[in-house]
């Protein structure tokens, strides 16, 4: 009985309801078979949502992953699938038109047909945002509802931004909401969304994708096959993705993310989305293997599948051929190992092949820097610097105004890390009180900094460290005194916030606190502070 595997009680009433309905449908229809459907798919991913959104990192990668799974395990022939990466709304509409035409021909041949539509990317103001183009959700739904197919499966992974785990989608307005109740025009339609209407959908550098698509993909690869029959149904996949997404995002700054599910499959029963048994290729987790979450990591360090194995259950994970590292996390250590998956072979993972490893040896590298979309910004402004008054240091370095020019490289080393370079110069007149010597003081500083920022819609606070090379010079009116200079490296802290006037322009208020070693008349530890305000422009 497949229904026995659908339990998600205690997790969500929504999932439980879905499970019960699915059970009813399955009992009535006697189950479903993937091979009775001619499947078509339109899969789109776009990291860009236009000028008023921040680029996503993994939307395109998620779309590629889903395309691979559907064509490899989901019964969708390559000629019946269209993958659109970074395309616009017109590309999607064109693809839908093409696929519907094919589906109509199949229907005329008497075949049952199904259409998968998957989208990963930005959404805002009731429209999918594909680059600078818009595709209204209502129009999309109407278009798909009118498609000449028997079953329509729409999966949307999009919504708003989050905090620590980056979220996806719009900034200014609530993301579109799709009702959980089945609308009148949705007969034979299933709609999965990655989050509720008032929630953000989040990406994770650690897993290299959005939480929802990652867990959906892991489920489709076999992780969701709770029945153990080697087939992953729509409800299994959704329940698995729901549980894992909620669990992973529960502690995120953006809050828990609850995928939604609406459907009307009357007359069609549950759908088998992937058949992991027939492929007989991948990794097999036997019943006797310890329970827990298994991370199967590809050669690039990305999690190809994250399988939550129950006690006494077995799992087939239909991974593509290749070499994988395996990680299972215990409370005090990791169990890690490596396994090769030859083509056409289902390899059993033996617990004995794993070894203990410390957490520092985690093979999950997450998103490498190569996947980050780094960008430059430049800023200019005015600052004021003053050395802390001290008995020995007073009068050495007079307070001075500075003209600052900053360059910043964002998201190069890591997401929300900013590598900064700045150049400042200024000068003032002062007097050495002890000898009554007027002088002109000039200072030039060249510095690099590394800060972490927490972007929000209007305000981005940041904090970090800075290392400055200070070049200070003074010349005296009295020719009896030679010019004096001092150069030193000065480590310090920097903190501030940027207020965003527009997508590219911000006003920054910044404070610095630096250590200053003075060692001409003996070693003295001085410090100085700086306040500055500047305007920055993001490229």
């Amino acid at each position, binding site marked *: 009985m497949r229904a026995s595997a659908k339990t998600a009680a205690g997790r969500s009433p929504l999932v439980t309801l879905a499970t019960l309905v699915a059970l009813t449908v399955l009992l009535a229809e006697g189950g479903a078979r993937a091979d009775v459907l001619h499947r078509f798919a339109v899969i789109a991913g776009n990291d860009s949502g236009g000028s008023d959104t921040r680029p996503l990192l993994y939307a395109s990668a998620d779309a590629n992953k889903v395309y691979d799974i559907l064509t490899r395990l989901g019964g969708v022939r390559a000629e019946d699938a269209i993958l659109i990466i970074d395309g616009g709304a017109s590309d999607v509409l064109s693809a839908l038109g093409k696929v519907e035409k094919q589906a109509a021909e199949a229907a005329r041949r008497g075949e049952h047909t199904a259409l998968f539509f998957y989208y990963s990317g930005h959404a805002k103001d009731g429209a999918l945002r594909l680059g600078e183009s818009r595709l209204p959700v209502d129009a999309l739904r109407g278009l798909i509802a009118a498609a000449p197919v028997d079953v329509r499966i729409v999966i949307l992974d999009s919504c708003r931004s989050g905090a620590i785990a980056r979220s996806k989608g719009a900034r200014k307005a609530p993301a579109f909401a799709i009702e959980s109740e089945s609308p009148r025009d949705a007969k034979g339609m299933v709609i999965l969304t990655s989050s509720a209407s008032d929630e953000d959908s989040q990406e994770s550098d650690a897993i290299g994708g959005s939480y929802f698509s990652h867990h959906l993909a892991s489920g489709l690869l076999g992780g969701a096959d709770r029945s153990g029959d080697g087939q992953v149904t729509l409800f299994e996949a959704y329940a698995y993705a729901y549980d894992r997404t909620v669990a992973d995002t529960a502690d995120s700054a953006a809050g828990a993310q609850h995928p939604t599910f609406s459907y009307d499959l009357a007359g069609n029963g549950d759908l088998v989305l992937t058949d992991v048994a027939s492929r007989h290729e991948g990794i097999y987790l036997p019943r006797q293997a310890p329970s827990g979450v298994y991370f199967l990591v590809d050669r690039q360090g990305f999690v190809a599948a994250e399988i939550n194995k129950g006690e006494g259950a077995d799992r087939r994970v239909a991974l593509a051929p290749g070499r994988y590292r395996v990680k299972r996390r215990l409370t005090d250590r990791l169990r890690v190992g490596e396994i090769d998956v030859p083509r056409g072979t289902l390899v059993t993972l033996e617990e004995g092949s794993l070894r203990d490893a410390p957490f520092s040896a985690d093979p999950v590298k997450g998103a490498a820097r190569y996947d980050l979309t780094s960008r430059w910004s430049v800023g200019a402004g005015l600052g004021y610097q003053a050395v802390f008054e001290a008995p020995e240091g007073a*009068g*050495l370095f007079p307070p001075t105004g500075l003209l600052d020019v900053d360059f910043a490289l964002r998201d190069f080393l890591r997401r929300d890390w900013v590598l900064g370079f700045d150049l400042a110069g200024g000068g003032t007149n002062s007097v*050495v009180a*002890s*000898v*009554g*010597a007027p002088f002109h003081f000039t200072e030039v500083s060249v510095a690099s900094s590394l800060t972490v920022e927490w972007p929000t819609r209007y305000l981005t606070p940041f904090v970090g*460290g800075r*290392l400055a*090379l200070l070049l*200070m010079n*003074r010349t005296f009116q009295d*020719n*009896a*005194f*030679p010019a*004096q*200079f*001092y*150069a*030193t*490296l*000065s*480590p310090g802290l920097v903190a501030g916030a940027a207020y965003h006037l527009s997508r590219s322009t911000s006003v920054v208020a910044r404070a610095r606190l630096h*250590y200053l*070693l*003075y*060692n*001409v*008349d*003996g*070693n003295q530890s001085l410090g100085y502070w700086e306040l500055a305000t500047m305007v920055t422009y993001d490229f």
Partner: protein
Amino acid sequence: MTSKALLLVSVAASVVAACGNYSNEDLEFMAAVPSSSQLAVVLPATTNQNQAELAADTHNGIGQVNSLLDDVLGLIDTVRSYEPTTRKTNERIWGPFPDSNNPGWQWQLDVTRSDATTFGYVLEVAKSATPDDWVQFLSGSFDAAGGAKQGNGMVTVFFSNLANAGFPIDPQTAKLTSLMINYQNYQTPGSPVSATLVIQQLPDTNGVTSLTFTYEILADGSGEIGFTLVGNIVPGPNIETLTINAQWLASGAGMATLAVVSGDGAGLTQVECWDASFDPTYNSKPWMTNENVGDPTQCPAAPTF
């Protein structure tokens, strides 16, 4: 790398990287040694070929003083244009520096501080071959009683030491044995920079072994100077000793009194005044009455010291 380690590395890098001569204390040590400009006597220069006789004598006397200060203190000015070679809590040493004009010789200036306001200094010279055999050329002290660069000081220059050590000096300087300068330089309103220069020398053709200059300079440029001339100045067979005391205003206008101390005309006094162009406005010269001009009312008011 832990944050603690990172901090240590940063501090270590700062220590390694810090360099320069930026120092307030250096300035205090430097200020203890007078510069030539600090003690220079300033009387507006002139190109007037017919300037008053005693104005010309005053110019000449001031020229000698300033030239002497340039020669002596200018050497210190040069050394001081560099940063100290050695810094100790109460001592700064410049050098040894090789003497580019006199290969084989080197100089060193050592300034010490005995208390918060009292400094002493020595300018020494040595042969590069015997670097420990320093010969004292100049020594001095300064009490910055009025703050840095303001107080009482004394400088003694030992020309004879250089000659005795074999240091190459010009024939004119070789005639000098020592120079002693006592000065005060409170640069407060109404308080003049005053100095007394006593030059000891080998007997010249007139038998003179000592010359003394005393002067006071106010901040506004007015001043006075007194010095002695020896020579056959008054017509007659004897050598005269004359003293000149000159006073001038910032504009240059001034007056001078020449007194014949000994020799022909002993007891005679010449009084001469001049305007800002140094043209004589009044001259009373008893032994050359044909040079007398004007009357005393045309003399400027003397500056107040």
